[in-house]
């Protein structure tokens, strides 16, 4: 389980979640994204195409990151959620908080 990070040609930083985003690794994700923000990144896209499951701590970490990025006029967006993960955002109403795009390609075009 790990996080990948790459800068797209469009300038968006894409963070891939390989495996689970849960209580035991959410700090690692937060640190990576905050480091990127410190380095100047303002548009961050989290790619969940290879993600198994997310728990409430993981959701909390995403909410926290979204806030922090907003404070520096940046934005965190989400893409690649499968049906289960989408359900998770719907259940917690967090689908209203984030811009969620089906595919990463699509998200990059619109960001």
């Amino acid at each position, binding site marked *: *389980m790990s996080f990948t990070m790459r800068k797209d040609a469009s300038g968006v930083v894409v963070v891939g979640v390989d*495996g*689970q985003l*849960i*209580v*035991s690794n959410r700090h690692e994700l937060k640190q990576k994204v905050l480091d990127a923000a410190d380095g100047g990144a303002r548009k961050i896209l989290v790619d969940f195409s290879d993600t*198994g*499951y*997310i*728990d*409430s*701590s993981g*959701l*909390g970490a995403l*909410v*926290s990151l*979204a*806030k922090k990025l907003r404070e520096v006029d940046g934005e965190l967006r989400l893409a690649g959620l499968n049906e*289960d993960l989408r*359900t*998770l955002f*719907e*259940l*917690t*109403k*967090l689908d*209203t*908080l984030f811009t969620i795009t089906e595919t990463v390609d699509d998200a990059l075009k619109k960001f």
Partner: protein
Amino acid sequence: MTVPLRLAVRRHDVSLPEPARTALRISVRLPSDLEVVEEAVDVVARHCVAEGLTARRARFNLRVALCEALANAILYGNAENAAKHVHVHVTITEPHFLVEVQDEGAGFDPAAFANVSLPHDLEALGGRGLFLIRQLVDDVYLNERGNGICMVLRRA
């Protein structure tokens, strides 16, 4: 959304129905360390699938709910105290998978458990764990002392 939303909160020990013929029980004892959550969730899910839980419910409903329960047991119940353990018992009967997570802590605030809802502040950082458990499994029970939660997944 096909997730069933029934909840039963009862302040007494769960008395499991006596299985007519064979009963299968799987127990895992975990240290109070968040690092083991993922592996424990995997182990339990794998064995439940081996016993006929649908892949979808094992992959999503069971995994997320169990992950929440384990995190709470380790963080709040055992306060990450290395001398304490978390005990997971899965009892598999004809109609149900009963997944119990018990910690060695002082027990739950029953109010916190009975009135679980989404945090009023949509942007709250926490407070969604018990709510998700309630949404993802068919029934939830708390044990007498309040340090054990039993999550019920129907087979179908």
